[in-house]
C-alpha cells in the first residue's frame, strides 16, 4: 500500500475544521451579506436594515414607526449555526408576534398593520452569541 499518497491529504484533513470555522464566520456589516439577506423581502419595499451583534445571550432592541394600511415583513438573517429570533411589540410593549412559533422557526414573518404607531423589535439568539441583520420591508 502506498501511504505516501495518503500523506498528501493529511494537511487538508487537519485544515478542514479551520476552514469550516472560517466559513461559519460572517461579516454582518458586509454589504454583500446584507444584499443577500435583502433578497428575502422580494415583493416588499426595503425600509430598514437593523444590524445585530449580540454576546452571551443578550438582546438588542430597535424601534420603528409602522403605518396603518401597510404590511410589514420582518426578517432574521444571520451567519453561523444559531438562530436569530425577532419579536415584535406594540407601542405599549405588548408582544404582537415572533418568528419562533411553537418551536418552529421562520426566517421571515409578515404583519399587516392596522394601527399607526411606534413598534419595538427585539432581536436575540436562541443560543449564545452571534451577529446578523434584521431587515424590515413593507408593501401597501
Amino acid at each position, binding site marked *: 500500500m502506498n501511504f505516501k499518497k495518503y500523506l498528501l491529504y493529511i494537511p487538508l484533513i487537519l485544515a478542514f475544521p479551520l476552514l469550516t470555522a472560517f466559513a461559519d464566520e460572517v461579516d454582518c456589516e458586509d*454589504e454583500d451579506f*446584507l444584499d443577500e439577506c*435583502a433578497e428575502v423581502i422580494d415583493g416588499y*419595499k*426595503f*425600509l*430598514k*436594515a437593523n444590524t445585530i451583534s449580540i454576546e452571551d445571550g443578550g438582546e438588542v432592541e430597535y*424601534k420603528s*414607526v409602522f*403605518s*396603518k394600511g401597510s404590511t410589514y415583513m420582518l426578517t432574521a438573517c444571520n451567519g453561523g449555526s444559531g438562530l436569530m429570533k425577532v419579536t415584535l411589540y*406594540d*407601542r405599549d410593549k*405588548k*408582544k*404582537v*408576534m415572533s*418568528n419562533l*412559533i411553537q418551536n*418552529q422557526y*421562520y426566517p*421571515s*414573518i*409578515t*404583519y*399587516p398593520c*392596522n*394601527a*399607526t*404607531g*411606534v413598534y419595538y423589535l427585539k432581536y436575540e439568539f436562541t443560543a449564545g452569541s452571534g451577529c446578523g441583520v434584521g431587515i424590515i420591508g413593507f408593501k401597501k
Partner: protein
Amino acid sequence: MANDLKIGQFFDIKTISRMQENANNMDSLLYISQRGFEQMSNYLEKQGRTDVGAQLLLGGWIEGVYLATSVYKTEPNERIMETIGEQKVALDEIMVLMDAFRGKRNFQTIIKGFDNLKKVYDEVEMEYVKEEVEMEVAPGVFQKVVNSKSTVKISPEQIETVTETIEELRANIID
C-alpha cells in the same frame, strides 16, 4: 452639497452607476438610496457628527410633510388627510431626538419651528382599539396576535395650520 457636508463619498460613481442600471426598478432604487442613507447615518455617528445626521433626517421628514400638504391643497382627500394626521406619531419621536440638540446654536430655527408644529399636533387626536386576532404571519402559518386599530382625528382647519407651519419652517431653513 454632499461634498460640503463631507459625505460626498456616498455619492460615488459605483453607486450612481448602480442607480442608473436600476432606473426602471423602483424597489431596487429605494433599496440603494435607503441603504446609502443608512451608511451615511452610521458614518456620521462614528465621526461624532450626529447633528448632521439629525439635520438630514429632519429635512427629509419636513419635505415629506410639505409634499403631503401640497398634494392635499390641490387634491384634498381622506387618505392624505389621515397620513398628515398620523405624522403626530413621527413628530413625537422627532421631538425626543430634538431634545438632544436644544443647546446647539445651529438648531435654534429648526427647534422653534418644530415646537410650533408640536403645538398644532397636540390638538390632533389618535385613538387605539386593541383586539386579539388570528393572523397569517408566514405563508400558511397562522398565529393569534395582538392587533390594534388606530384612527386619527384631524380637521381641515388643523390641516391648514399644519400646512402654514410646515411651509414657514421649510422657508426658514431654505433662506
